[in-house]
């Protein structure tokens, strides 16, 4: 399959800011680590030898992967686990706990799916907040920034969902709660099922069981549950790092300056 790389490299180098960058150690197949400069932008993780390098070594598209701490791989280690037959696990290590935690958090919130769910949730909150506002305060609309367009556009952040585009009721919280009642998450919320949530028409019937690539739960779950799970991971990482800090002697830190 051809990936049109010039589009990616142009996107990387264009004026919009990067989401995170820094040195990480990337584990090779031979189990040795190589220090690389990583740049995270949207759902793309680019890497090169050094920050000033024009030559990009590679890019990892961050969709369909779980972000996991993997202390079994060593100190400050974590991995990107792509779930699916024959798919890779990328292993990394940070120089210290703070870097590790920071990257974990950035990578956990990097996927398109995650952003999509977040936008949906905020759309709902926005609608609710608007409804609570007194109808008499019509002057507010004039102070709204230029980005705002006719409301039907902004009510439909989901991708390709034609029924949702026409029906602004698709994103009411009651629909999401109904879907949540049907759900029974057995697997990590970072797996593919989460991604499917935003391509399914909320008002339409769920696809047949056989169409889902993975066995298990309902395609749509309440966003706060997803966040709780992520939040737990991040909290766990942080708690363990704090405990480690209290216990440990001063470890040798690699000077990255």
């Amino acid at each position, binding site marked *: *399959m*051809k*990936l049109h790389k*010039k*589009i*990616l*490299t*142009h*996107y990387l180098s*264009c004026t*919009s*800011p990067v*989401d995170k960058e820094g040195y990480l150690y990337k584990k090779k197949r031979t189990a040795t680590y190589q220090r690389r400069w990583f740049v995270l932008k*949207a*759902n*793309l993780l680019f890497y090169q030898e050094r920050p000033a390098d024009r030559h990009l*070594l*590679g*890019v990892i*598209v961050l*969709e*369909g992967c779980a972000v996991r701490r993997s202390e079994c791989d060593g100190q400050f280690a974590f991995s990107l686990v*792509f779930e*699916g037959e024959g*798919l*890779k696990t990328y292993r990394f290590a940070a120089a210290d706990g703070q870097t590790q935690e920071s990257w974990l*958090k950035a990578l956990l*919130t*990097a*996927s*398109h799916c995650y*952003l*999509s769910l*977040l936008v949906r*949730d*905020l*759309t709902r*909150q*926005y609608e609710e*907040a608007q409804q*609570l*506002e007194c109808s008499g305060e019509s002057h507010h609309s004039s102070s709204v*920034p*230029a*980005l705002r367009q006719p409301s039907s556009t*902004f009510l439909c*952040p989901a*991708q*390709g969902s034609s029924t949702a*585009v026409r029906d602004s009721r698709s994103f009411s919280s009651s629909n999401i709660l109904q879907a949540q009642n049907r759900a029974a998450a057995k697997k990590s919320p970072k797996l593919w099922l989460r991604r*499917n949530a935003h*391509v*399914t028409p909320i008002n339409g019937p769920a*696809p047949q069981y056989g169409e889902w*690539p993975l066995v298990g739960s309902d395609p749509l779950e309440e966003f*706060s549950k997803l*966040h709780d799970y*992520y*939040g737990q991971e*991040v909290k766990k990482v942080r708690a363990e790092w704090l405990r480690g800090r209290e216990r440990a002697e001063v470890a040798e830190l690699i000077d990255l300056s």
Partner: protein
Amino acid sequence: MRFNEKELVFLSRQPSEMAAELGMKGHKKGDVIKRRLVKLVVNFLFYFRTDEEEPMGALLLEQCRVDREDRQSFSITFLDEAERKYLFECDSEEQCREWMDSIIKASYEFMRKNLIFYRTEIHRLTGKDPLEQYGISDETRFQVSNGLQMTSGETSSL
């Protein structure tokens, strides 16, 4: 530049509502329109030969412009120096409109701008930052300065 090809091919197999056979013409001078199965998954546009399981290619839908070409066709122009343009022919005006709309909204940057807009507006209307409950209010990617131009009065409390 290496990339996680297997994983990207796996991504291309995920269910998507925006998947259809369209006419597609590449950017090169001699290119002609060919029928391709075009599929939108997250911010990637995959295209397949109609009888094949593995995609021929993947286009990242960032830094591009979507234009109406005629009643049933649209184009995607990538805004690098070369300004490569891909043409797509649909079967109806409605289908054309749906695809254009979906492609625009699939862009990560577009979604980011939306998010920042809603974040700011919700904060303005309720006095609360909606990202705080998720513990992500200080993530760089969600900062107001990242996407949206705001007047100083509106950014002061974020």
